[in-house]
C-alpha cells in the first residue's frame, strides 16, 4: 500500500524512485499494443517476443559496430522486424486458431534457440552488452512513443481498416461476402504488429545494459506474459492490453511481499478472467469497472480472444 500512498501524495518522488518501473510499463504497453492488433483481427499470434528480439539486437548491434545515431538504430530494428513479419506471415496466415499460435511459438523459439543463441555476433548464450544504455533518460522517449502508438491504435480502430479487422475477427467468411480481402488485411495486421513489437524491443534494449537471450526475455515465458496483458485487459478496445500491461507489470511492485507468488497470482487471474469475464477488464470500451455514473452505457457484448 505504500506504493499507492507515495503515488498519490508525492508524485515527483514516486517518479524518481520508480523510473524503471514506469519505463517498463511504457514498453510493455507498446508491446501490448502489438498484441492488440493481431488479436483485434482475430489472430492468436504469439510472435511478439521474436520481433522484439530482432528489434533489440539490430539496434544494439548497429550502435556497437557502426556507432550510428539512436533513431537510425531503432528504425533499422523496426524495418527488419517488419520484413521478418512479412516472411513469417506469408506462410502462417492460412492457419487458424491454435495452429497459428503453435506456429508462432515455433518461430520465436526457432529464432531464439536456433539463431540468436548460435550466432557469435549476438554474443550467443551470454547476451550482448549494450554500450550506451540510457535507463533513466530513455523513459521520455518511451512515454512519447507510447503516446504516439496509442494515438495510432485509436485512429486505426475507427477507420475502414479497423472495421475490416473487427469483421474478420468475428467471421472471416461473412467478411469475405462484404468484399473484404481477408488475407491481405490479416497480413497487414500481422506485419504492423511485428513492427510495433520490433519497436518495443529496440526501445527496451536501449534502456538495458545488456540484451539477454533468455526465455524470460524473448522466449515462451515472455510470450505468455504478453498474452496475459491482452487477456486481462481485454482485446476488444485498444486501451485494454495497455491496462493489462499496467496491472501485470506493476503487480510485483505493489505486492512486494508476495513477489514470489506473482506467477501464481497471474495464473489465477488468467483462469478467473477467461472463465468469468472473457472480454477482459476493459471489454469493448466500457471500462466497466471504473465507470462514472454519468458515462453513457452501451449495451454491447465484447469478444473474447480468438
Amino acid at each position: 500500500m505504500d506504493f499507492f500512498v507515495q503515488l498519490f501524495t508525492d508524485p515527483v518522488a514516486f517518479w524518481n524512485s520508480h523510473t524503471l518501473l514506469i519505463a517498463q510499463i511504457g514498453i510493455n504497453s507498446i508491446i501490448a499494443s502489438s498484441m492488440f492488433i493481431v488479436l483485434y483481427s482475430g489472430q492468436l499470434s504469439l510472435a511478439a517476443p521474436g520481433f522484439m528480439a530482432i528489434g533489440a539486437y539490430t539496434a544494439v548491434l548497429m550502435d556497437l559496430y557502426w556507432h550510428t545515431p539512436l533513431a537510425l538504430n531503432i528504425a533499422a530494428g523496426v524495418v527488419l522486424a517488419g520484413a521478418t513479419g512479412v516472411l513469417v506471415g506469408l506462410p502462417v496466415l492460412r492457419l487458424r486458431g491454435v495452429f497459428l499460435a503453435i506456429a508462432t511459438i515455433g518461430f520465436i523459439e526457432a529464432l531464439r534457440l536456433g539463431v540468436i543463441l548460435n550466432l557469435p555476433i549476438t554474443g550467443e548464450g551470454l547476451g550482448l552488452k549494450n554500450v550506451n544504455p540510457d535507463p533513466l533518460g530513455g523513459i521520455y522517449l518511451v512515454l512519447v512513443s507510447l503516446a504516439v502508438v496509442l494515438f495510432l491504435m485509436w485512429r486505426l480502430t475507427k477507420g475502414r481498416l479497423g472495421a475490416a479487422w473487427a469483421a474478420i475477427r468475428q467471421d472471416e467468411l461473412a467478411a469475405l461476402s462484404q468484399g473484404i480481402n481477408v488475407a491481405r488485411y490479416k497480413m497487414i495486421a500481422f506485419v504492423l504488429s511485428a513492427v510495433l513489437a520490433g519497436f518495443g524491443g529496440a526501445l527496451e534494449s536501449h534502456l538495458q545494459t545488456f540484451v539477454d537471450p533468455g526465455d524470460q526475455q524473448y522466449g515462451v515465458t515472455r510470450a505468455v506474459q504478453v498474452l496475459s496483458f491482452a487477456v486481462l485487459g481485454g482485446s476488444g478496445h485498444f486501451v485494454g492490453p495497455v491496462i493489462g500491461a499496467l496491472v501485470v507489470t506493476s503487480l510485483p511492485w505493489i505486492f512486494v511481499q508476495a513477489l514470489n507468488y506473482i506467477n501464481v497470482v497471474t495464473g489465477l487471474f488468467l483462469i478467473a478472467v477467461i472463465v468469468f469475464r472473457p472480454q477482459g477488464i476493459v471489454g469493448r470500451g466500457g471500462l466497466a469497472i471504473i465507470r462514472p455514473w454519468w458515462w453513457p452505457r452501451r449495451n454491447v457484448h465484447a469478444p473474447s480472444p480468438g
Partner: protein
Amino acid sequence: MDQQILNAIFIGSIYALFAVGYTLVFGVLDILNLAHSAVFMLGAAVTYSLVVNHGQAFWIACIVGIAVSAVMGLVIEYVCLRPLRRRKAPPIAALISTIGLALIIVATIEQGQTGSLFSWLWVDGANSVAFPSGTFPNPTWHVGDLTLEAAKVAIIPISIVLMAVLGYVIRYTQVGRGLRAVAENPRAAKLMGLDVDRMIALTLVISSALGGLAGILFGAALGDISPYIGRDNVEIRGLAVIVLGGMGSVPGAVIGGYLLGLIEVLALVALGSSARGGVAFAALFLMLVLRPQGLFGAQLRERI
C-alpha cells in the same frame, strides 16, 4: 554417433509418451492442454520429494507420483475446462486457462523451499536435482563403445508397452470406442447414451497419468528434476511432435516422438550441439506451413 542414436531413442520414447497424452486430449476435446508439461514436471517432482524428503521406497513413490498426476488431470478438467464448456467458450479460452494453471503449478514448485508454505511438496526451489544413486537399481553395461544405463534402456520397453496398451484400449475396448465416439461426434455420443462429461474426465486422467509417468522416467533416467523440466524439455517439443504426427492421432504422436528424437540427433551430428534446440521448432514451423494436419491427422475445413 551410435551413442547419440541410442540417446535419440531414449529421449524419443519420452517425447512419444508425453505427446500421446497431449494428442489424446486434443483428439477428444479439440483443445490443447498446455498444463500437460506442468504435470510432467509435477510427476517427477512429487516422486523425488517422496523419496528424498519423506523417505519412501522408490516404487511406492512412483505410484503415488502417477496418482497425483492423474488427480491433476481431474483438476484440469474441473477448473480449466468444464466451466468453459458450460459457457460455450471458444477453444482458445481453454488454451489460456490451462496456461494459467501451468503457471500456478510451476510457480508453486519454484517456491518450495525449506520453511516455506510448500516445503512438504518440494524444498529445492529452482534448483535441479537428481535421484541419489541407489534409489533404484541402475546397472551400467558397456557394449562395444556404447554405454547402456539400465534406467535409460528401461524407458523403451516401458513406453512401448504403455503405448501399446493404450492403443489396444482405444481400438478394441468399449471404453476406447466411447472415447473415439466423443472425439468424432460428441452429439451423437450423447444420443447413444454415453456420459460425455465423464468420458472427458477419463481422457484427462489417462492423459495426465501418462504425462506424469513420462516425467518420472525422464527425471529418473536422465537425472534432471527441477521446476523447469517441463518447459525446457517437452512443452514445446511436445507441440512439435503432435504437429508432426498429426494432432489427435495417437499413432502419429508415437511416430512423431521418435521422429523428433531422430531429427534432433541428426541436427546434432550435422550442425553441432547448439542447433539442437532450434531444430524442433524449425520442424514444427515447416510442418504447419506445408501440411498442417501432420502425418496422420485429419483435414481441417470450415463449412459454410
